[in-house]
């Protein structure tokens, strides 16, 4: 409804001079509008085919109300079947995966009922597009179930081994003879290095102190490798890969500890990126099964505003868990002076069948030493 | 207040039955527990629940006796062991039995649980089950049936095949006694005797308090099922008028005492309305508060 006078706010459509299906050119008169001053002919500025009228003759509509839909020449003919374009039948998870893998769903053939596109169709399309890259998770029934994600180094004896593990903590506490060691680490060098280096970083590249702790744990495991192991059947298998499970609290309560692979080989920036991505996806429940079953050790922390010390309960089939309390300001003797310093209390819960207090303390000492040289992490 | 739409939902007036609440409550101690029905304003006031807190509750305010959550049918006051109004007819009886059981099992002697209910409840299964259980386990419950002759719109003769309620109670081996529910002195005297016996023996007793409500079952009841004459006859024995006449006869009160009393009552009511109107509404953010004592961690 065009404004046909400065003070005009509404107009009455008195009659249509065209009908749906008519082709119109720019400037054609297509309707007559009645205003309190006069009956005025209305011209169209678009050329094309009138698809449908939106306003009935005789009705009063405010200025600016669209009166008719004109499909400009050259636009695709809408399929006769339905008003909107045909709905793409795709499962929500497949759509998410397509987005993740950069596959255009419209080009995927759906194998589900009624042609619904499923994850495996998207995976196949992604693989077909780039044969070099194997699909993220092996297609299902055709192949034997996934081998345990943490490729055991020494022991390749295992066929796909069914590990019936109840993940309940209470069971872990009862089956695994835990012993605990605590230690307090002066973080003044680490925190000042972090603050200093964050100043030069853009906000999206900013590091959290957590990544320093994760990297230190990963490197300390090279000093005490027996902590980086998992039970398989009745045997402990030590792993070369260091995949640290990061305990993430879910919003409504509940905890999950997916792994960051090769934590020891990642740079602090790569580690921060992986950490941030993991937390985001965990809280959207979209973790990959490989991530959940991959950790060779777990690190847990209850965050800033909480307790000084946390003693973790080991996640079976792992053999250790490192717990960080909150970083707090404490009076601390360093180089003979008593100064207020940021410190963190770290705990190690370990499986008595696999290691002992002496080795466990060697791990915590190594961790401490690594955190005194943050620039090396 | 109700007609001024300050009070909503159901409201069951107690006018006419005052002698029962006042008489019985005189015989109870602070250690006794009380379980009542949705017509419990009389019992609550007689127990000492402040009128302001009742009025605020009926205004739905946070300073009401149940923080505006219960309304007129659900007045609670734990400090005064007033375990509330129950809107399901007969719903309170098993709870009263349980309270008495708790006192028994924790060795708290010399206590009773007073359980008020109407003649309507006598037809409920819970009446049968509760009296049987209290008698079987010999629990200190004082069952108080306010027989106002009507279960909402149904006269008692069309409600109970055996309308002699005291007789029914005795069938469970519980001594029962009918009492003139319009005479507060008679009620108080009977209640005192019963309470002393229950406290002493620990076994239940039953009083059938014959009374009458001058107003309809509730504000929503057109009260067509009773004749004006019948209501008129009972009004002759208005419990408050009866008491006033006796006190005057005994020269215990005179005109100025009566007017002083009336102005005190009026003042207390105004105060109550003031407190209710000034009271805050509970913030909507607290909607889910107190559903559980300890929400799932």
């Amino acid at each position, binding site marked *: 409804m065009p404004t046909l006078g400065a003070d005009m706010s509404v107009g009455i459509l008195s009659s249509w001079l065209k009908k749906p299906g008519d082709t119109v050119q720019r400037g054609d008169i297509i309707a007559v509008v009645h205003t309190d001053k006069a009956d005025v002919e209305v011209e169209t500025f678009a050329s094309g085919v009138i698809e449908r009228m939106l306003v009935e003759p005789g009705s009063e509509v405010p200025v600016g109300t669209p009166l008719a839909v004109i499909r400009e020449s050259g636009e695709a003919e809408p399929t006769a079947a339905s008003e909107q374009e045909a709905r793409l039948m795709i499962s929500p998870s497949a759509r998410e995966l397509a987005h993740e893998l950069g596959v255009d769903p419209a080009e995927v053939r759906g194998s589900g009922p009624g042609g619904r596109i499923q994850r495996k169709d998207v995976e196949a399309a992604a693989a077909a597009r780039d044969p070099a890259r194997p699909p993220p998770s092996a297609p299902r029934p055709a192949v034997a179930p996934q081998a345990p994600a943490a490729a055991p180094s020494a022991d390749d004896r295992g066929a796909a081994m069914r590990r019936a593990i109840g993940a309940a903590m209470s069971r872990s506490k009862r089956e695994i003879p835990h012993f605990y060691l605590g230690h307090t680490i002066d973080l003044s060098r680490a925190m000042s290095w972090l603050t200093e280096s*964050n100043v030069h970083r853009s906000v999206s590249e*900013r590091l959290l102190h*957590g990544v320093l702790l994760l990297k230190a744990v990963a490197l300390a495991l090279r000093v005490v490798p027996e902590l980086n192991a998992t039970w398989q059947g009745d045997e402990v298998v030590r792993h070369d890969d260091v995949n640290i499970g990061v305990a993430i*609290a879910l919003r409504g309560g509940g905890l999950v500890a997916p792994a960051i692979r090769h934590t020891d080989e990642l740079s602090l920036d790569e580690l921060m990126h992986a950490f941030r991505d993991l937390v985001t996806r965990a809280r959207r429940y979209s973790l990959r099964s490989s991530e959940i079953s991959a950790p060779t050790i777990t690190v847990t922390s209850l965050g*800033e505003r909480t307790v000084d010390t946390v003693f973790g309960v080991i996640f079976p089939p792992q053999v250790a868990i490192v717990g960080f309390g909150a970083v707090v300001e404490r009076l601390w003797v360093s180089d003979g002076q008593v100064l207020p310093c940021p410190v963190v209390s770290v705990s190690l819960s370990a499986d008595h069948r696999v290691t002992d207090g002496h080795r466990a303390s060697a791990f915590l000492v190594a961790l401490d030493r690594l955190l005194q040289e943050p620039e090396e992490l | 207040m109700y007609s001024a739409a300050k009070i909503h939902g159901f409201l069951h007036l107690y006018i006419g039955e005052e002698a029962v609440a006042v008489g019985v409550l005189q015989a109870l101690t602070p250690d006794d527990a009380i379980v009542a029905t949705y017509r419990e304003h009389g019992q609550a006031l007689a127990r000492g629940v402040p009128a302001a807190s009742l009025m605020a509750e009926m205004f739905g305010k946070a300073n009401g006796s149940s923080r505006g959550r219960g309304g007129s049918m659900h007045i609670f006051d734990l400090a005064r062991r007033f375990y509330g109004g129950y809107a399901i007819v007969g719903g309170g009886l098993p709870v009263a039995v349980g309270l008495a059981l708790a006192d028994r099992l924790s060795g708290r002697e010399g206590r009773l649980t007073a359980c008020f209910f109407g003649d309507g409840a006598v037809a409920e299964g819970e009446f049968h089950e509760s009296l049987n259980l209290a008698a079987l386990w010999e629990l200190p419950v004082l069952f108080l049936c306010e027989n106002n002759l009507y279960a909402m719109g149904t006269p008692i003769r069309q409600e109970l095949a055996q309308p002699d309620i005291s007789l029914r109670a005795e069938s469970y081996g519980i001594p029962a006694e009918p009492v003139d529910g319009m005479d507060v002195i008679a009620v108080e005297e009977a209640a005192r005797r019963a309470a002393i016996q229950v406290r002493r023996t620990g076994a239940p007793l039953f009083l059938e308090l014959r009374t009458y409500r001058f107003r309809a079952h509730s504000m929503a009841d057109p009260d067509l099922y009773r004749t004006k004459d019948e209501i008129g006859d009972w009004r002759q024995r208005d419990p408050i008028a009866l008491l006033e006449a006796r006190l005057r006869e005994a020269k215990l009160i005179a005109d100025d005492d009566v007017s002083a009393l009336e102005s005190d009552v009026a003042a207390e009511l105004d105060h109550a309305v003031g407190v209710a109107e000034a009271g805050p509404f509970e913030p909507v953010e607290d909607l889910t508060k107190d559903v559980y004592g300890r929400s799932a961690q």
Partner: protein
Amino acid sequence: MTDDQIREGVLRVLAGIVPGADLTALRPDLGLRDQLDIDSMDYLNLAIGIHEELQVDIPESAYDQLETLDDFVRYLAERTSGST
């Protein structure tokens, strides 16, 4: 940028970080950490979101004066008043 626009921007970023939280009942004078159960990672995402949404860079040093929604609006208002 008016205070309301800033507040709306911050709430939009928060909605992305705490999907499903009822932000309408958020008290602007109470700490965000307690009301929304958010941790240092969420605070970092908040800083990144605000940088993208309102083009203001919040240095780490400013974190401890930014506890409530009002703090954020006040802090950002000072830094965006120059640009409108």
